[in-house]
């Protein structure tokens, strides 16, 4: 049974739905059938909205039949990381601390997906309190498993979001990213994931990890689908103090314009000098640069500060802010936190005020470097991973202190950054590349990504976990 091949992309499904050739109820039922069959293997969900999804799909059927087609997400099955508030539902962030928490609001992104007519399929697995690094078996729900190899990590923290798309349980998901939590699981699961410019998508109703870095963004099979999702998610929200009132362009309209004449910077020293990544990664990411060059872009290496400098700043700021958010609960509900996340958060208690400020000053210098690079180049490209996909049961408590975090530079600088499938390891696991662009210019980032995906034709391969 190769049902996963029957799961269309958002773009493919939307065209059929608009023409009346595909009913949202049939599409939703296909996804629910797959969830019923394979979720026990994958553990992508914390909660599945079977009845609600069927009801919403029937409503979408009727609206579209009556001429009320709302747009490309109408009738599309989408699932949400279990960190977004949904009125009437618990939001747990996979923590016993939050096992009975119910918000009395919908997160703005939930409202926007509902307004776009998306079919909400359920709440997805996450690392506890979205503090990435590795999955934990001590949290409220067991960890999600990677559809490409069930013994491997999905990456995180948006672990269920990556696994659900790769497994064909839904066509798109929402993730959140403060240190790579959209881009790392996108890379590990061989899909696309976009961290938009900070302020582009409202974080109102997203359970916080880091006030400096928290971003919400789409994850889907390819970049075109991320563009379609971003179109509905983006835009000013007065309820989010970090939201910025700036025009939202049409993200899909320019995807096929090609990349001839663009200048692309390859941050090669991140994966060849600052850290010696395996040859498969070097070959794949260098290959992205070569493909983009073949397509008419000018590709040149760009030199920034060593990756460890970026890593150092991120590793000071992130736990300090997470600890500040959780301080009271850590003092009073210590036993309810999984040991992995509570010790990671405790690192924040060891950061003094002066350390935090020095990190924020260094961050400003590094941001200036990236701005200089992006004044010369339209986008910059580097790897989304530095090591082979780790095993699911990796026991290292603080791996992020030893291996530099390759996603962190673009959290520090707040630039839009997108992960795409760039190749495969010899063992068949996917390799991801990051493409980052200028502030508010997600459109160019997505155009470069879409052009590469079309040329490289790597996305025809799906994980085979069904036998």
């Amino acid at each position: 049974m190769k049902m996963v091949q029957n799961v269309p992309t958002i773009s493919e499904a939307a065209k059929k739905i608009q023409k009346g050739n595909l009913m949202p109820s049939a599409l939703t039922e296909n996804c629910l059938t797959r969830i019923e069959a394979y979720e026990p293997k994958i553990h992508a969900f914390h909660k599945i909205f079977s009845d609600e999804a069927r009801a919403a799909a029937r409503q979408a059927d009727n609206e579209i039949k009556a001429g009320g087609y709302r747009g490309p997400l109408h009738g599309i099955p989408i699932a949400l990381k279990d960190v977004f508030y949904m009125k009437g539902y618990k939001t747990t962030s996979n923590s016993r601390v939050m096992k009975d928490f119910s918000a009395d609001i919908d997160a703005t992104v939930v409202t926007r997906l509902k307004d776009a007519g998306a079919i909400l399929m359920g709440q997805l697995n996450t690392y506890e309190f979205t503090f990435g690094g590795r999955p934990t078996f001590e949290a409220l729900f067991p960890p999600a498993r990677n559809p490409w190899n069930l013994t491997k990590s999905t990456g995180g923290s948006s672990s269920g979001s990556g696994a659900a798309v790769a497994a064909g349980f839904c066509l798109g998901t929402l993730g959140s990213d403060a240190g790579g939590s959209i881009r790392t699981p996108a890379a590990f699961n061989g899909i696309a994931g976009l961290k938009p410019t900070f302020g582009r998508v409202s974080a109102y109703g997203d359970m916080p990890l880091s006030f400096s870095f928290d971003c919400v963004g789409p994850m889907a099979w390819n970049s075109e689908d991320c563009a379609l999702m971003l179109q509905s998610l983006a835009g000013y929200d007065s309820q989010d103090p970090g939201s910025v009132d700036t025009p939202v362009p049409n993200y899909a309209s320019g995807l096929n314009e090609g990349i001839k004449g663009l200048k692309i910077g390859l941050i090669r020293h991140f994966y060849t000098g600052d850290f010696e990544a395996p040859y498969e990664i070097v070959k794949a990411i260098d290959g992205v640069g070569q493909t983009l060059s073949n397509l008419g872009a000018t590709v040149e290496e760009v030199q920034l500060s060593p990756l460890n400098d970026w890593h150092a700043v991120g590793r000071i700021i992130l736990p300090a802010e997470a600890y500040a958010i959780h301080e009271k609960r850590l003092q009073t509900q210590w036993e309810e936190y999984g040991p992995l996340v509570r010790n990671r958060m405790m690192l924040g208690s060891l950061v003094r005020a002066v350390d935090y400020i020095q990190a924020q000053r260094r961050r400003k210098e590094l941001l200036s470097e990236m701005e200089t690079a992006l004044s010369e180049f339209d986008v910059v490209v580097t790897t989304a991973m530095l090591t082979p996909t780790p095993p699911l049961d990796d026991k290292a408590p603080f791996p992020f202190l030893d291996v530099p975090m390759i996603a962190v530079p673009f959290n520090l600088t707040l630039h839009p950054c997108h992960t795409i499938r760039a190749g495969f390891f010899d063992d068949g696991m996917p390799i991801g590349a990051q493409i980052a662009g200028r502030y508010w210019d997600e459109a160019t980032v997505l155009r470069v990504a879409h052009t590469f995906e079309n040329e490289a034709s790597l996305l025809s391969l799906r994980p085979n976990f069904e036998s």
Partner: protein
Amino acid sequence: MEKENLPLNDDDLIFEGLIRASRVPVSKDEKIALRKAYSTLVKLSEMTRKTGRNWEMGMLPVYIPKPPKEETK
């Protein structure tokens, strides 16, 4: 590592003080793991102190009040 070669703050007393100041109960085993992590954290923190930095270099994030919309018209 010799004591004189330790980074400035990689010190058992400071570590113990910070843990105590947190008022979070930490088990003996967890404290051992955190102590090792703290050494790494101190080294990372030293990397953020760039030699020759202008002392007026500010920090991020910088909050800038936005004028009322009617004043920008």
